């Protein structure tokens, strides 16, 4: 659905986007993560044909961003970093303007559908200026979707929202994913990316990595199992260290943190061994690194290089 080929954007001497090459598949929620000033918004603007690339190219829904900008704009939806509503106009009027610009056939029907879906139908005649941040964001989301685009670009959709509003927006993004739309999600919120995205890209002017959150964790930290014991004794550790499947063992208080390749296969053996050695096992669980750990690790690696 989205293909970029060495996409580059320079502002004078500053390279905002450097040779970005990636592919976003149909129906995927693709997280685009990076620090402030990394070039995420610039990338979205390039892909929505708001600005033109310095070099390289990209295709959105098979359309070339250099030569088919008008068709791309017709076919994608964008939620900009700030809602950008006409504050003095009503919610319904805000949507009506964009529905007409996108040549939506059933303007009234679509307005009702999205305002009801987002829970602001009762406020449809209220000026947008009277809305809370969360309501404004919902209205901006409705505007991005009013023409039923197959590809939606969401730039920081939950930033500056309170937890409840952010939760509602996330739920809505989940619904969009279930409808099979392709979503390009720029976010700072790593937990959000972890929960919503099929794949993520870490970006800081250039692409650092792209993969599923699970694969990134595994690549960076391996898979770890934590075994809580009543008491850790040296003979337990020595016995486990002789097992070929185990890569590393750390002792933290009364816990063993075991690094292994295939916990699904190896865990039963490990547990059986411990039980046979007389260990009192209290809990067993997988140590799951947060996406924040992955992000920090990759950003630090990038900074040091």
């Amino acid at each position: 659905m989205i293909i970029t080929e060495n996409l580059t954007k320079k502002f004078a001497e500053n390279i905002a986007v450097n040779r970005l090459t990636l592919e976003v598949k149909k129906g995927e929620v693709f997280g685009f993560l990076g620090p402030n000033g990394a070039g995420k918004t610039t990338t979205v603007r390039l892909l929505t044909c708001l600005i033109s690339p310095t070099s390289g190219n990209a295709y959105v829904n098979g359309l070339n961003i250099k030569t088919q900008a008008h068709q791309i704009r017709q076919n994608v939806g964008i939620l900009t970093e700030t809602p950008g509503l006409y504050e003095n106009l009503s919610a319904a009027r805000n949507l009506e303007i964009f529905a007409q610009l996108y040549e939506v056939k059933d303007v009234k029907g679509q307005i009702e559908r999205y305002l009801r879906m987002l829970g602001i139908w009762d406020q449809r005649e209220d000026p947008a200026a009277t809305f809370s941040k969360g309501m404004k964001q919902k209205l901006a989301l409705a505007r991005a979707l009013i023409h039923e685009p197959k590809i939606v670009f969401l730039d920081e959709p939950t930033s500056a929202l309170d937890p409840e509003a952010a939760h509602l927006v996330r739920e809505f993004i989940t619904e969009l994913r279930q409808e099979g739309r392709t979503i390009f999600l720029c976010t700072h919120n790593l937990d959000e990316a972890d929960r919503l995205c099929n794949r993520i890209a870490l970006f800081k002017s250039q692409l650092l990595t792209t993969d599923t959150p699970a694969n990134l964790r595994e690549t960076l930290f391996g898979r770890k199992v934590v075994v809580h014991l009543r008491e850790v004794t040296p003979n337990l550790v020595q016995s486990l260290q002789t097992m070929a499947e185990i890569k590393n063992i750390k002792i933290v208080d009364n816990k063993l943190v075991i690094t292994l390749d295939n916990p699904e296969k190896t865990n039963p053996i490990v547990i059986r061994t411990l039980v046979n050695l007389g260990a009192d096992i209290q809990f067993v669980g997988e140590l799951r690194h947060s996406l924040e750990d992955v992000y920090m690790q990759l950003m630090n690696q990038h900074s040091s290089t």
Partner: protein
Amino acid sequence: MNKILIIIRKEWSEVFLNRMVLMTVIFMPLLFSALPLIILFSTRNTGSADYTSDMPAQFAQICPEGLSGGECFQVYMVNQFMILFMMLPLIIPVNIAAYSIVGEKTQRSLEPLLASPITTAELLIGKNLAAVIPAVLATWVGFLIYAIGVRILTSNPLVVGALLDSMWLLAIFIAGPLMAVLSVNFSLMVSSRVNDPRVAEQLSTVVIVPLLALFFGQIAGLIFVNKTIILIMIAVLLILDAGAVYLCIQFFQRETILTRWK
């Protein structure tokens, strides 16, 4: 629906919620219609008194035959105000147009608009017409009120004819809209380049200066507005309008507006 019409309707539904703009569109034409009518009313009894010494010699010479000195003075005084009347299509759209781009930027509404399938030409034509149409209509309505007032206040058909002659009809119905187009495009150019709507409004009022110069030049007896000057003005305005529209499109750089405005 035609995208230009969508933009016009959007602009109007936003702009006319602003009381200041609404007042400008309603109040200014009424004021500018009232001023010459008040003069006509207050000088209605001048009769055959000779005021020709108070008028520039050129005007006294071309004063329509059959008018008394007092009636000629009436025509002269009202003519002074007709130039002010011509300022309406310059003043009214400035507020609308100056706010047009900067207002969008300050509300951050320009990015979603530019991301929609609308061309720069459609957007600018829509914004142009949204400012020009109310200005021209308000001017014409004001002129209509003035013309009716003239008919009521003066009994001499020669005075009516002199005040509603072809020169002023050309000025109001041809030069007026052309001036509105110039004013709007100048304002759009300014508002494409500045960040603050107030700065845009103030800079945009510069376009009124040449007409003010004409007004004071005529009062001082340095220039005498006649049909030839109006025709030259129309020709110049046509050229300026073409240039202004071209420059307006050149100045409106989507990328610059989105990436450099803070």
